[in-house]
């Protein structure tokens, strides 16, 4: 009451005006079909202290992020009341920009209007209540992920004052994942604040939820029980059982995600090594510059992205399309380069596989340095399009869209390559040349052209791999180098010239690599894979599917 009286004394006009305005606003907004968070907030700003309580209560039903924004402006003196002859407007001034609080529309004010606009600030009691409201704002957000994060944060803070908010949300929450997060948060909070029975119930609840986040809290409870000399109490026993359940669950998840990562690593390897399997297996050319063609793919993606950002901006709708466009473009650019390279240099080396290795290594040095001169020695930044961000969750097991997309692309690549080799004329020619160059030539197959096309195809596939890689790794002059040794392995294991073998061995190497990594670390994992490969070749020297031939190879 005192504050109202004080405010009357300081500015009687303002108090009267706000009273009038309040009724005016009420009549307008009540007349409108829908009351939203902005309207309620406007009323709150203009309301009397007594009415504020009701309005705050009402405001707490909304999860609009605008509430936080407006409140921040209000607290820091960015909310103004502008009284015109015919209307009263509530305005927000943030970032040098005026907007209407009630609708969020941007408006421009004349200089006179700016001068007569009166600043308003939140009172202390409102500030105090708003704080609690803002803390639980995330629980009511439209985005379920925001709700989940907010619930987890509230649970971890262990503050008892959040419990009512969480409980009331649990009653109305419809989404299962959010419900689980709220239950988890409540249980964690009760572990700290509840009595013995509540603690026991929480621990059991957490076991049911397989809550990884709660491990530390349960351990604390268990420790407290043990130090209190109650190591055999039901709570202690339940705690250790829960911890074990959670640990088992984590192991399973770890295994599943290694498996998933293995498949996606294998997919990248597959795309990269398919190109190699074609140039190396079908043509007998060891293309040491294959890694640089991977980098061409990465850089093409980078350039397409830069073009999109410069033309439409990073946050535009159009930006999402850049990756879709850069995939085929990378293929075409690299295939073009490959074609030129084949015509100018590679075609002289078909009978000298070991020398092709040296020559293409020289080419790879030249290309690497060209990348450095054009794009700089440091890695360049390639952003994920928004539609590839996020995860597909599956019972607590997350699969990122990027990696799922990579698997999809790998599948498409396998399918298209198979169709090309089996169902088209070019494929028929490629296979004929691969089986017997001289015989194919004498049967009228244009061997030189087939060679060019095959080499271009292999380079294009490498670049496709590079484009895909840009989404999960770095794009730089040396980006292809780290895959080149693995890719050669894939080709050797999968039997040279056999695409099915290459596919299987890529997946196999990817899986073994990722499954070994948690236990051995990345380096020892790689080394183990290498020795496994050497031993595998003792058993099957020709790879998975050795070509059958009665001819001797020299």
């Amino acid at each position, binding site marked *: 009451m005192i504050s109202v009286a004080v405010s009357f004394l300081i500015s009687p006009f303002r108090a009267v005006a706000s009273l009038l305005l309040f009724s005016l606003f009420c009549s307008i907004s009540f007349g409108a079909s829908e009351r939203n968070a902005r309207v309620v907030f406007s009323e709150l700003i203009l309301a009397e202290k007594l009415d504020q309580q009701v309005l705050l209560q009402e405001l707490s039903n909304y999860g609009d992020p605008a509430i936080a924004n407006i409140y921040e402006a209000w607290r820091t003196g960015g909310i103004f009341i502008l009284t015109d002859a015919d209307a009263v407007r509530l305005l927000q001034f943030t970032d040098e920009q005026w907007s209407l609080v009630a609708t969020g529309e941007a408006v421009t004010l004349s200089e006179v209007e700016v001068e007569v606009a009166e600043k308003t600030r939140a009172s202390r009691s409102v500030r105090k209540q708003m704080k609690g409201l803002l803390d639980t704002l995330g629980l009511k957000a439209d985005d379920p992920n925001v709700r989940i994060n907010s619930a987890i944060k509230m649970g971890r803070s262990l503050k008892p004052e959040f419990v009512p908010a969480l409980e009331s949300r649990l009653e109305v929450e419809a989404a299962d994942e959010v419900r689980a997060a709220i239950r988890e948060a409540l249980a964690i909070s009760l572990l700290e604040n509840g009595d013995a029975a509540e603690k026991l119930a929480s621990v059991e609840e957490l076991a049911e939820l397989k809550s990884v986040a709660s491990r530390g809290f349960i351990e604390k409870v268990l420790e407290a029980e043990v130090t209190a000399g109650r190591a055999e109490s039901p709570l202690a026993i339940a705690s250790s059982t829960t911890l074990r359940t959670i640990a088992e669950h984590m192991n399973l998840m770890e295994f599943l995600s290694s498996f998933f990562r293995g498949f996606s690593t294998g997919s990248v390897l597959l795309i990269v090594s398919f190109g190699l399997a074609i140039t190396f297996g079908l043509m007998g050319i060891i293309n040491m510059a294959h890694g640089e063609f991977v980098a061409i793919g990465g850089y093409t993606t980078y350039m397409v992205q830069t073009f999109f950002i410069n033309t439409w901006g990073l946050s535009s709708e159009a930006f999402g399309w850049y990756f879709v466009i850069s995939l085929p473009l990378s293929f075409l650019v690299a295939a073009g380069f490959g074609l030129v390279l084949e015509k100018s240099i590679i075609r002289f080396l078909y009978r000298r596989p070991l020398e092709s290795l040296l020559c293409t290594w020289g080419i790879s040095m030249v290309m690497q340095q060209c990348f450095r001169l054009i794009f700089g020695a440091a890695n360049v930044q390639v952003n994920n399009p928004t539609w590839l961000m996020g995860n597909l969750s599956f019972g607590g097991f997350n699969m990122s869209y990027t990696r799922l997309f990579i698997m999809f692309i790998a599948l498409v690549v396998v399918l298209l390559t198979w169709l090309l080799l089996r169902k088209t004329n070019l494929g028929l020619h490629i296979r004929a040349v691969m089986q017997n160059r001289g015989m194919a030539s004498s049967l009228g197959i244009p061997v030189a052209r087939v060679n060019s096309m095959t080499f271009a195809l292999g380079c294009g596939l490498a670049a496709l791999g590079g484009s895909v890689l840009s989404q999960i790794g770095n794009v730089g002059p040396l980006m292809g180098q780290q895959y080149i040794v693995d890719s050669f392995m894939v080709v050797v294991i999968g039997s040279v010239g056999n695409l099915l073998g290459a596919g299987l061995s890529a997946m196999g190497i990817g899986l073994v690599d990722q499954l070994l990594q948690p236990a051995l670390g990345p380096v020892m994992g790689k080394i183990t894979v*290498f020795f496994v490969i*050497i031993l595998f070749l003792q058993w099957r020297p020709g790879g998975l599917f050795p070509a059958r031939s009665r001819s001797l190879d020299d």
Partner: protein
Amino acid sequence: MIKFKNVYTMLSTETKKEAGIFCIVAALLMLIPGLNAWGPESGLLSVSSFQVSLWGKYLTYAILAMSLNLLWGYTGLLCLCQSLFFALGGYAMGMYLMLAIGDASGAERALPDFMVFMGYQDLPSHWKPFDSFWFASGAVLWVPGLVALIFGILAFRSRIKGVYFSILTQALTYAVCLLFFRNDFTFGGNNGFTDFKEILGHSINDPSTTRWLYIGSALLLLFTYLITSGLLASKLGKVQQAIRDSENRVLFSGYSTTSFKLVIFTLSAMIAGAAGALYVPQVGGINPSLMETGKSLEVVVWVAVGGRGTKWGPVIGAILVNLFKSYTTQAFPDYWLIMMGGMFVFVVLVMPNGIVGVYQQVKASIAQKRSLQTAEA
């Protein structure tokens, strides 16, 4: 004296020519330390200690190239782990040199610096014997030899040859290189070994030490040449070259190509290891980047540029390519990779027999032109 004369007349002109070249090369090699020790202080004929160790480094490269030539030039095995053997030899010698630092400072078996940083209390047991120079010198030979033997048995037994052999050896290099980059592998991780103080009680920066290391490299080079020549003249060498030309025919003739290849592979690894051991004290350090996959390919390029399957080609190639490299890295820091790469492409396309083969190539093409002209006339 009479006996010697008899032997001399028994030699063919070819052998006499080779012996002559050998003597000229030996004399040229000894010119550098000679001028360094007794030559003028300045002027055209003065040779600084820096230049002595630089040329010493080139000589170790040349030996490395010769060891690869033994495999690639004469046996047809394109091995991409030659720099690995080189580095293994280097590491073995480096271990001795690291421990010698402690001796120099007078401490009782001081730990190398990087071990102190890693928190080691005591020297790991596999380091202890390297306190002795002679043990280290032995390890320089048997460590690369053993690695080659084991890998060779696995590879040759399952008839891995040609390109597949190259790829597998490259993967081996890659795997071991990753291993040496690890800090907990007790070999200094990323930084490797450096800051050597003395070798066999002599300061490593002393001009006379530099000279002796150079002379050691030159002698090893000449020795390697003699081994190569002797090998080529022997039955082993004949089988070796037959394997290069047609392995299946050798196999069908009843020779076990596996064991022949194994012997050559192991021998070549040991030579590379010895070269590495001489390289490390002259360069003053070693780190795992020496065994990166690219380094092995560089060695292949030296051999290709000089001329594979020739006795002096690899030496010429190694020295010329490295001179070219050190010139271009200074003169064109932005473009030297492009120039080097371009040179490889050029050599492979235009000079398949290397520099040594250019003379033959030109002679052959002139002869061909002449015969065409006479045919037209």
